[in-house]
């Protein structure tokens, strides 16, 4: 494998890791507050559809982005209503949202565009364009560092940079601010937060809203950044992969970055090398495509060491008698 191929695979890793990373951080905020969010998938899907649809109709990708975030937040709000306000089962609520998103996106897409549950392809203006960072052209011919800068670091859409900046930001919020302290506490011991005179419900809704925004970004990126338009089930299990990455990352932002990059790399390799010829036999493309999902199963089955989830995760908070 030559240097340029490596750079290209890594470049594609960064693109593919972006939606995972945003969704993973969304899950991180939610689960750190004690709300299990299996509905990441559904929220992303809804955001992907509405951002593409509105971007197509309005011709503005920014309108699309807003619509995507709004759709994801609406889903988040339903999840919050069911699992925080009415103390329902968080898994069931999340699964229901996933089904809802899967059906509703195709239904509306068919009704609006009549193209078999997809949106028309987005033209320029309707999608995010790559940003060329300063000096990228000038430095392009510098050996090693040039292509690294030009191919790998420069030339992504704004959402990619946002996603990667979210990592230090999340760390900062979580570990340096009052809100972060309370958020971590409410996922571990809501009764401690309650007796300290802070609202458990308020904190959890705040976390859910943040998760909604991040999922909205993730979904919008899928349909207006990574690809040019919405197709049915285009999230393809990325929400679940993000959850696996979250467990792999032990609910920590920096680890989440590396976990998502790992999954992104697997996807990138699968894209690049369709059939790997080992001489004696050929590894078919299906095996490569399945790799991220296999890794997900391995991680969820607990083969990567003990991950201790936030203690109050999944439990609706009820004052004890």
């Amino acid at each position: 494998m030559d240097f340029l191929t490596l750079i290209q695979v890594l470049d594609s890793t960064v693109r593919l890791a972006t939606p995972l990373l945003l969704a993973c951080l969304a899950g991180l905020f939610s689960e750190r507050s004690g709300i299990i969010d299996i509905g990441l998938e559904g929220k992303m899907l809804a955001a992907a559809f509405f951002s593409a649809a509105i971007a197509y109709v309005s011709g503005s990708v920014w309108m699309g982005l807003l619509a995507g975030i709004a759709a994801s937040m609406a889903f988040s709000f339903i999840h919050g209503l069911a699992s925080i306000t009415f103390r329902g089962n968080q898994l069931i609520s999340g699964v229901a949202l996933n089904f809802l998103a899967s059906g509703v996106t195709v239904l509306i897409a068919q009704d609006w565009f009549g193209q078999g549950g997809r949106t028309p392809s987005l033209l320029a203006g309707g999608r995010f364009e790559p940003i060329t960072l300063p000096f990228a052209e000038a430095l392009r011919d510098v050996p090693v560092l040039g292509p690294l800068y030009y191919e790998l670091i420069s030339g992504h859409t704004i959402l990619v940079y946002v996603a990667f900046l979210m990592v230090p930001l999340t760390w900062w919020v979580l570990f340096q601010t009052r809100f972060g302290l309370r958020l971590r506490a409410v996922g571990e011991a809501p009764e401690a937060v309650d007796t300290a005179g802070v609202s458990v419900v308020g904190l959890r809704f705040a976390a859910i809203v943040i998760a909604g925004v991040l999922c909205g970004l993730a979904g919008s990126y899928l349909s207006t950044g990574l690809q040019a338009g919405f197709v049915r089930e285009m999230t393809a299990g990325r929400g679940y992969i993000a959850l696996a990455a979250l467990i792999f990352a032990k609910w920590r932002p920096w680890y989440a970055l590396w976990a998502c990059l790992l999954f992104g790399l697997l996807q990138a390799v699968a894209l690049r090398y369709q059939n790997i010829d080992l001489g004696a036999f050929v590894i078919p493309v299906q095996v490569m495509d399945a790799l991220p999902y296999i890794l997900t199963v391995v991680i969820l089955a607990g083969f990567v060491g003990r991950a201790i989830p936030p203690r109050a995760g999944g439990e609706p908070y009820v004052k004890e008698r």
Partner: protein
Amino acid sequence: MTDIQAAPAAAPAEADVQPAIELRGISKSFGPVQANKDISIRVMPGTIHGIIGENGAGKSTLMSILYGFYKADAGEIFVAGKRTEIPDSQAAIAAGIGMVFQHFKLVQNFTVLENVVLGAEDGQMLKPSLAKARKSLTRLAEEYELNVDPDALIEHLSVGHQQRVEILKALYREADILILDEPTGVLTPAEADHLFRILDNLRREGKTIIFITHKLREIMEITDTVSVMRRGQMTATVKTAETSPEELAELMVGRKVLLRVDKEKAAPKQKVLEVENLRVVDDKGVERLRGVSLEVRAGEILGIAGVAGNGQSELLAVLGGIMEGEGHVRVNGAELPLSGRHADGQSRRRRGIGHVPEDRQHEGLIMEFQAWENVAFGYHHDPRYQLNPLLMNNAAIREDTAGKMERFDVRPPDPGLHARNFSGGNQQKIVVAREIERNPDVLLVGQPTRGVDIGAIEFIHQQIIRLRDEGKAVLLVSVELDEIFSLSDRIAVMFDGRIMGERLPEETDERELGLLMAGISEEPDQPEWQAVDEQLDRKEAQAAGSDPAGGE
């Protein structure tokens, strides 16, 4: 126990001093249960005011109302003479009220500092808040002997130190009135002594303390005034100096009670239960039993004393077939399998081991099942319970249950009632009846009277002694030293997965057992609370060392 005298700092003439707290006509019900009924109470500033009552008398509910955790259905609260609404904990904190709950409200994987600051931060950013808290923690530690390492993780702290963190939390919020709910339940006697010293210091600084307990001895030792609650009502408020434990017990229960159990001297015979070098490692890889050896003879009660979490639960679990272990256990000379397919509760029962588990609501009963179904559990293979090889004879089980309920005075005697609808004492009687009436050779009993009212305690104690007198071996685990003393024929003390020593009840006292419970087997050359403290510090340092703190 200590030289602390229950004397108010400067007893002011009550007439011209406003009460620190006054409750008027507080009522609260949970559905059909009236937890508090028209309760009025005045607590004078700078005093320690005890509230005593049985489990379920409504003490904790009353205090939770005062702390804004529940809302009263009726009644008024006055703080320092001013009528105050306390709709939530924030309001209670603002009114200068702090509360130390029975079950601590701490975030386990946070540091002491973070727990203290949580909810009382000084701004959006953490760093300045933490720095400020660190300073004030140092000051509080000096002022009140409340030493805790501010950077230690809560999960590495002993229970006694966790409790100090709770007190520090309240003091950091500048509470003038401190409510402690059953604070000594989890402490060794020496730790309790230290707590009383702290409370004494606080009283001297003019703080007001409300001290909730069901232990008469503590009331007599530390309080200035005591209020007695029974079935949701306040039955009396008296000066501690002018009352006696017997009088208080009668006020609590509503009739005369025996505070001591009557029993003959034991006549132990052959060895029934022999445990040799028993080891258990839990699923986190922590060694819970580190080579426990003991024996129980026919016709005697061996009491295991110790602070909760020192391996007693694991000992019962292994003997009862709930957990796997290594070592040797013999019943009537025959070896028991400690792991594998035959190490389960069913096989243990077949070998003549009855088990009254520590946690009756999770291990002893299924709360959502009816009493007769619960009576069949573990004994559902009993031929008397079978109609034919396929069907069970439910009528026979019901009838059997009705008989047990009558003999063990379970109220109401209705086999069709769900377990959760019985009071704690009656639930426990069902479990005890199920196990004792099987006539086991060995009875394992864990915390037989936890959360059980005094009347039922008397009865359960009598039943355990009756079984002993019939020549059975009884292994009793209890964190209540009083219970250990009144039932046991021999006492073994557990600490950190080991038996620290064995004593005869007539040749030892609470002080000696208290030191053993803290892992100190030699007479210390410093004040005992200090020795215990240092021992705990060593244990915590070990815990922190073996499990590096997970920051971010």
